[in-house]
């Protein structure tokens, strides 16, 4: 007995010893790793902070990027960092206008006999990669774009943004060794030929996939180069602790002017939003639905620090126009008129999104005021449903929504309730996991679902043509209207802005009337901003905005 008891104690002692050693080793390793990067500070410390860095650093919340490779990025969380670290020929300014970045200026040719248009970009001579300080030349662009289009890169975006360049498809299919439409004239001149005139081609080039990457770096370490990416953007990735923090440092030789903040710190773990903001751990934060009312109250001291603005995105109820009962436009219109979007926006969403009565969101260039939006008209909706050929014999209806977590989509539930009250239809909500939702919506498995679209580049083409052109790959509604198609095709190449606006207005009006989608809400952004943060604005899209910010304490 005694012997076994002693052995037992030894085992227990060993367990405790192992635990203690493990913890000591792990913390030593981590602290060492942390301090070598210059910051293992706890939040308490970073408040008072080392005076040099944290005092003027701009601090905000964020999420982990899925990738820092411009050719791979397809999501907001990645693009947010990539636009600051990398740069391309052109970029979007505060007002979402295309402005020069590495290209100083450019000439656009008239369409030739085959309708092809050539852009000649004149590159600045003073642009260098931020880490290697090597000068950026036209050949770097040819390399970067061909790399993005190369099937080996597995870029999900390259074809969408660069596929219109002459010879891009041949290169993607392996029939050509380079993209014939991208020509390096000399170190600072790049010629790009596209298949047909595209007034929004420069807008497309602001997307991250068109950014320039450093060939030497990428080829030397193809699997790990994004850990210390060598871009041309206003900031340099200084430190990235997965799930904890991401630190950007100002690129002092940035060709459009050195950013005013020396350092930007993204807290990737916080997630506390308002709590962290009030504790002084972040300098700006978005406000969620539950706090928005108290913040909007003018008596709240935080009200002074609050701003909100619409963003280029729309959320809608989508119909498959090829299946019953939504193959009858009257049913679609009835559903569209039976939703009280004002009430949903104001009561359910507390105005963190704005009611949408048409497709193009406010703030979109070339958005004509001539388009007459949808109204809320339950009486007319009921009448339309009775006139439809499905009167009294509607099939079983399921509304699909994409959802992760038990986050019951309250907006959808409110819509279903309104449709029931106004039209007497019973609709079941089916919440589907995002991974399968997207696939099934594309394959036409749903008759009705809720979805949204947000701008990739600020042009109506990105909404109307991409979503509603009958042959578009994103037209999940299977919507087809010859008149709309004709207007959209004409608008694509129309060089005159006023005429283009008018063409899009006509197309949008037809689409709104046909109701392949029932618009619900427009996206909106909001932020609480500390008074010492100067130059903040809500751009409505992902653009390189951090260089406009400065911190001026007391």
């Amino acid at each position, binding site marked *: 007995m005694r012997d076994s008891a002693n052995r037992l104690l030894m085992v227990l002692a060993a367990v405790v010893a192992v635990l203690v050693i493990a913890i000591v080793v792990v913390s030593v390793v981590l602290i060492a790793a942390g301090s070598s990067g210059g910051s293992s500070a706890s939040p308490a410390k970073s408040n008072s902070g080392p005076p040099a860095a944290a005092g003027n650093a701009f601090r905000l919340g964020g999420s982990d990027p899925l990738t820092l490779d411009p050719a791979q990025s397809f999501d907001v969380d990645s693009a947010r960092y990539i636009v600051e670290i990398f740069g391309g020929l052109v970029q979007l300014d505060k007002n979402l206008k295309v402005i020069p970045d590495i290209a100083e200026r450019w000439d656009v040719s008239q369409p030739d006999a085959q309708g092809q248009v050539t852009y000649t970009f004149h590159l600045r001579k003073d642009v260098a990669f931020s880490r290697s300080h090597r000068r950026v030349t036209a050949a770097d662009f040819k390399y970067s774009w061909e790399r993005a289009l190369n099937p080996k890169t597995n870029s999900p975006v390259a074809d969408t943004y660069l596929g219109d360049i002459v010879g891009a498809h041949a290169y993607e299919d392996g029939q050509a060794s380079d993209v014939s439409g991208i020509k390096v004239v000399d170190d600072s001149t790049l010629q790009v030929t596209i298949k047909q005139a595209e007034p929004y081609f420069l807008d497309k080039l602001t997307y991250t996939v068109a950014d320039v990457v450093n060939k030497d770096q990428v080829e030397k370490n193809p699997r790990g180069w994004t850990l210390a990416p060598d871009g041309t953007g206003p900031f340099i990735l200084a430190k990235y602790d997965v799930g904890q923090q991401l630190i950007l440092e100002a690129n002092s030789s940035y060709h459009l002017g050195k950013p005013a903040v020396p350092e930007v710190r993204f807290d990737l773990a916080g997630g*506390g*939003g*308002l*709590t962290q903001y009030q504790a002084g751990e972040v300098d700006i934060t978005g406000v*969620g*639905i*539950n*706090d928005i009312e*108290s913040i909007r109250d003018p008596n709240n001291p935080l009200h002074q620090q609050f701003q909100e603005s619409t963003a280029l995105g729309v959320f809608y109820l989508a119909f498959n126009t090829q299946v019953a009962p939504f193959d009858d436009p009257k049913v679609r219109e009835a559903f569209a008129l039976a939703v009280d979007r004002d*009430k949903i926006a104001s*009561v*359910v969403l507390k105005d963190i999104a704005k009611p949408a009565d048409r497709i193009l969101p406010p703030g979109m260039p070339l958005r004509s005021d001539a388009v007459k939006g949808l109204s809320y008209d339950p009486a007319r909706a009921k009448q339309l449903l009775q006139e439809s050929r499905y009167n009294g014999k509607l099939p*079983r209806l399921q509304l699909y929504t994409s*959802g*992760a*977590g*038990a*986050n*019951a*989509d*309250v907006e959808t*539930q*409110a819509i279903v*309730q309104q449709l029931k009250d106004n039209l007497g239809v019973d609709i*079941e*909500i*089916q*919440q*589907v*996991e995002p*991974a*399968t939702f997207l696939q*099934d919506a594309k394959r036409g498995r749903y008759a009705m679902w809720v979805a949204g679209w947000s701008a990739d580049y600020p042009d109506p083409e990105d909404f109307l043509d991409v979503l509603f052109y009958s042959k578009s790959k994103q037209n999940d509604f299977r919507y087809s209207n010859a008149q709309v198609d004709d207007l959209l095709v004409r608008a694509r190449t129309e060089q005159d802005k006023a005429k283009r606006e008018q063409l899009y207005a006509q197309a949008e009006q037809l689409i709104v009337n046909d109701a392949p989608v029932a618009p619900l809400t427009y996206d909106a952004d909001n932020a609480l901003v500390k008074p010492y943060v100067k130059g903040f604005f809500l751009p409505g899209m992902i653009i390189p905005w951090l260089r406009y910010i400065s911190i001026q304490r007391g």
Partner: protein
Amino acid sequence: MTTAEAALDAVAPSRPPASQWRMALRRLLRKRIAASALCLILIFYGVGVLAPLIAPHSYDQIDLNHTFAGPSLRHPLGTDRLGRDVLSRVIWASRTTVVVTVATLVTGGLVLGVGLGLLAGYKGGGWDTITMRVGDVFLALPGLLMLIMISATLRPRWDGWMTHFYGWPIIGGTLKSGASDYFLVFGVLSLFSWVGMARVIRSQVFALRQTEYVQAAVAMGAGTGHVVWRHLLPNVSNLIVVVLSASLASVAGSEIALTWLGVGVRPPTPSFGQLLFDGAGLSNLRTHPNLLLVPAGVLVVLFLSFNLLGDAVNDVLNPRTG
């Protein structure tokens, strides 16, 4: 489960006749704490079963004019973000817990667990090896991760398959009203909850098989069914009750966890997992803590009762501690 197993390893074979059950129940009820725990659980299950009759409102009656309302006569526990009655939602959520726990204990615990345990213990040999080795694999699989993967990946297939039955009388209507989620959830839970029960039963049956009276019964030509039904089952029944009552809490907790993660019971069918998720967001907590405190309070009491009952049943029925 493992602690229960360890404790039960030493249980000697005994045959509780019917009167002994009554005695056990009386002893259980004599413990004041156990009796009140049992009482609370019965009330909870009663409320769950009678939810359609008791709930003052429907669980999905949306009233956009009265969102986030405080307690009132009409809504004793207030309303949520869509103006739905919190009390009614809690009552309907109990129903989900009731259905899932009962169904899982019956399929996973009784059918799979006891069935496989008897099979392995009585037949022995190859049957025993296969059952126990499969059990090993199930134990080595990270349960929660597997539950998530299964319900995430199989759900669309499952849904598609279920729609075939929508036309059927009675069953069709139940399926449409969210029961297909119940089936998936308790099916998945059962798959992972049988191993503990099967092991306990197996080792007990192993011991019983060696006893004289079972050997005598076999020698006298009694069929397998007869031996199992008359000699084995009655002798493991107290174990079954102990294990079942000990696993009530973990089954109920698993459903809540799955739903909380969005892979369990889906809205609009209410579940505590969802009520917690809705109420637990930090900003919700700051402004409307009642949305969390009400369901959390009910659950704390329920789980405490589960554990108290489990302990008491173990005391009464487990000869070693009793």
